[in-house]
């Protein structure tokens, strides 16, 4: 029992030191918005609950709105709304205005840089493409059915197989491919980095041994890894017939792994090595075995730092992925950008801009998800 409480205290402490700058700024902001205890009523209770959740997932902008709806001090909330929503929206508008004004000034050989309107146009055309392709897909399967029926008519014993659609991947499909690839790479990185980090943290000797390797490989660009990964994957991944994974997928995922391994590894090692000596002593007193020490004491108390590492890793992984996909020709967003650059048509720049925003927004969302997990594990039972 005492171990558990100690752990919780430890968790709280870690939160202070480990959360990244942005999240601690947000928690301060959230603290400033804390409801006045004296006005507590039902609505406020609900709003506190909602706001706790919003804060957890990092959407602190909505907190004043929820409070306003709950009827808390309207004047103050309106001021807050202006501050947390009004200012960013205004900044966004200024940015879009500058973009619109500046884009028309720069003439490339592909025409002017597309402004916001052109990019919106391309977004719609990509969506239209998607639906058109879907229709073609339906037609493809219909044709196949007819052909298969004919084949059966001719020879009732013929083996009938339904082939997958052979058309191009549409934009939403390419987004899914990218997400799946980064997830696979990130998962592999975590599976390698966390155990390795734990060992590093527990054994100073092992840490000293592996540290130079980490320091050398950490700053290597994905573009340098890629040719090596390509050759190794080609050499090792030899399958006859239909492969489960395409090589381009494996190459991209492994490159993501190699580049996103390090933040998790380092943070885990730091987290484990900075566990309170008292806790380790407790484990000695209780004569816990190695496995129990790791699972009951080491892992729980270093979770916040591990999640900080994971969050950084996923960010790195997503960035690396686009470059890896371009070169490995994995049919995701990276390849989309590359193909459009190669096409050099009058819509290409607009489409690339759409991809830029997509990449940014998805990266932002991934970061939010990781932040939520990180906070969840840092606060323990904050919910």
């Amino acid at each position, binding site marked *: 029992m005492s171990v558990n409480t100690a752990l919780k205290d430890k968790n709280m402490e870690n939160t202070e030191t480990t959360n990244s700058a942005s999240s601690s700024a947000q928690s301060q902001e959230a603290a400033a918005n804390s409801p006045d205890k004296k006005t507590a009523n039902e609505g406020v209770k609900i709003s506190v609950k909602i706001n706790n959740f919003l804060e957890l997932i990092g959407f602190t902008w909505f907190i004043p709105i929820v409070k306003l709806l709950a009827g808390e001090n309207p004047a103050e909330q309106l001021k807050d709304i202006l501050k947390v929503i009004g200012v960013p929206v205004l900044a966004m508008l200024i940015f879009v205005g500058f973009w619109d004004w500046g884009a028309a000034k720069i003439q490339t050989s592909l025409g002017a840089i597309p402004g916001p309107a052109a990019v919106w146009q391309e977004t719609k055309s990509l969506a239209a493409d998607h639906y058109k392709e879907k229709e073609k897909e339906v037609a493809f399967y219909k*044709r196949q059915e007819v052909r298969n029926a004919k084949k059966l008519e001719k020879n009732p014993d013929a083996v009938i197989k339904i082939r997958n659609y*052979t058309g191009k991947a549409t934009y939403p499909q390419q987004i899914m491919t990218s997400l799946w690839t980064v997830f696979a790479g990130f998962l592999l990185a975590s599976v390698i980095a966390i155990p390795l980090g734990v060992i590093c943290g527990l054994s100073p000797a092992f840490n000293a041994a592996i540290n130079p390797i980490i320091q050398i490989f950490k700053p290597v660009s994905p573009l340098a890894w890629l040719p090596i990964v390509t050759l190794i994957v*080609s050499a090792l991944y030899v399958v006859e017939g*239909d492969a489960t994974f395409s090589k381009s997928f494996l190459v991209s995922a492994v490159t993501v792994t190699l580049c996103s391994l390090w933040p998790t590894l380092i943070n885990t090692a730091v987290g484990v090595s900075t566990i309170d000596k008292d806790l380790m002593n407790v484990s000695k007193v209780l004569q816990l075995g190695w496995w129990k020490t790791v699972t009951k004491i080491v892992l729980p108390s270093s979770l916040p730092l591990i999640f900080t590492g994971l969050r950084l890793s996923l960010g790195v992984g997503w960035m690396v992925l686009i470059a890896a996909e371009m070169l490995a020709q994995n049919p995701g967003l990276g390849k989309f950008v590359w193909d459009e650059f*190669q*096409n050099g*048509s009058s819509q290409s720049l607009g489409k690339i801009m759409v991809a830029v925003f997509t990449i940014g927004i998805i990266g932002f969302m991934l970061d939010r998800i990781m932040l939520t997990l990180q906070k969840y594990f840092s606060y323990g039972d904050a919910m």
Partner: protein
Amino acid sequence: MKKNRKTFIKQNMGGVFKSCLAGLALTMAGGLTSAHAVGELEKDELKFGFIKLTDMAPLAVAYEKGFFEDEGLYVTIEPQANWKVLLDRVIDGELDGAHMLAGQPLGATIGFGTKADIITAFSMDLNGNAITVSNDIWSEMKPNIPKDAAGKPVHPISATALKPVVDRYKSEGKPFNMGMVFPVSTHNYELRYWLAAGGIHPGYYSKTDITGQIDADALLSVTPPPQMPSTLEAGTIYGYCVGEPWNQQAVFKGIGVPVVTDYEIWKNNPEKVFGVSAAWAEKNPNTHKAVIKALIRAAQWLDANNDANRPEAVKILSQSEYVGADYDVIANSMTGTFEYEKGDKRDLPDFNVFYRYFATYPYYSDAIWYLTQMRRWGQITEEKSDQWFHDIAKKVYRPDIYLAAAKELLEEGKISKEDMPWDTDGYRAPQTHFIDNISFDGHTPNAYLDKFSIGLKGKDAVK
């Protein structure tokens, strides 16, 4: 694991052996009687690679017009980053086949670059390339070019007009850089041919130096086709030789001027081929034949009724998953015209030929021309006998497979008898339409090499 692998190899070897036998039986049967049963496809889900160039059209058309599906093939067509990636992926089996430079199967077979056995049974098109120079170089060249009555430059433009410019760069100690798409590409040989015909040395390859810039007046280097215009724009190169739409793109963007098309360098020269690995072809003979059938029909469609289908083809090609350039850019060269200097649009009905003049037949003599150029510029470092040229050509170019596919199409009534050169020995009649008026007879490669003043011949070797 190991055991599994072994049995696997055994099974595969068995398969290869069987299909060899089957192939043998098929050719024998073909000789005796024309009506043999259509074999089952060994593989019906295929993936083909291409580079974003208009001459990939037969692949796009065969897909979009359903010719592949008519043969029971479910094909995915995928653009590749560059020619090396494309070749490597065909070799390691990720791609079943690809739109290839004619020199690639030959280069791979003789071991220049990656060594692998690649064959081709289908020639994809004739002509389709051009040489473009930057605006600055063009304005320097222009005074050296004779003009017609209307004040327009007289075509074809010889590289002699470029020579003073290159000489000036040389005397100032500045390298004169030009781009081509691949060491064994048609473009490399065409650019070299044009330069050498105008007295500009394009440089040799040697055993140890494969940059191809030994003794060069103009330094040639590799740039992937779609990046040509932007590389020219960046000033890294002063000119390039590439396929369409990347010359017309330069005109549209106003960054360069096409000076000469390959039709003018060598009338109706063979261009891309459809390449597959020899192992794949051996394992999937019926599939290979079905693919060739679909491609022949696509080529026929492209040239049918005096190019009536070209606008539709351009529309297909301008989709982002194929070539993806703007309709107007692609249409400029695909619909029987070619725009040189901006506004100087001329008729060039044979700039893109997909079917006429037996364009799809894989002639041994085409292969031999490429091999002579490899020898001329030192990619083949030592003297080879005429017999060697013939042997390599017959190993790589496979008209037997082509004719088997064509025969089936004839029986199905999809092509007519005069479309195919049924009785040819695989060598075109001596070809005379070169820019330097040297004629080429595929039967005598070494005698052909002797005719050039610039280039290796006989026992020459680069030191």
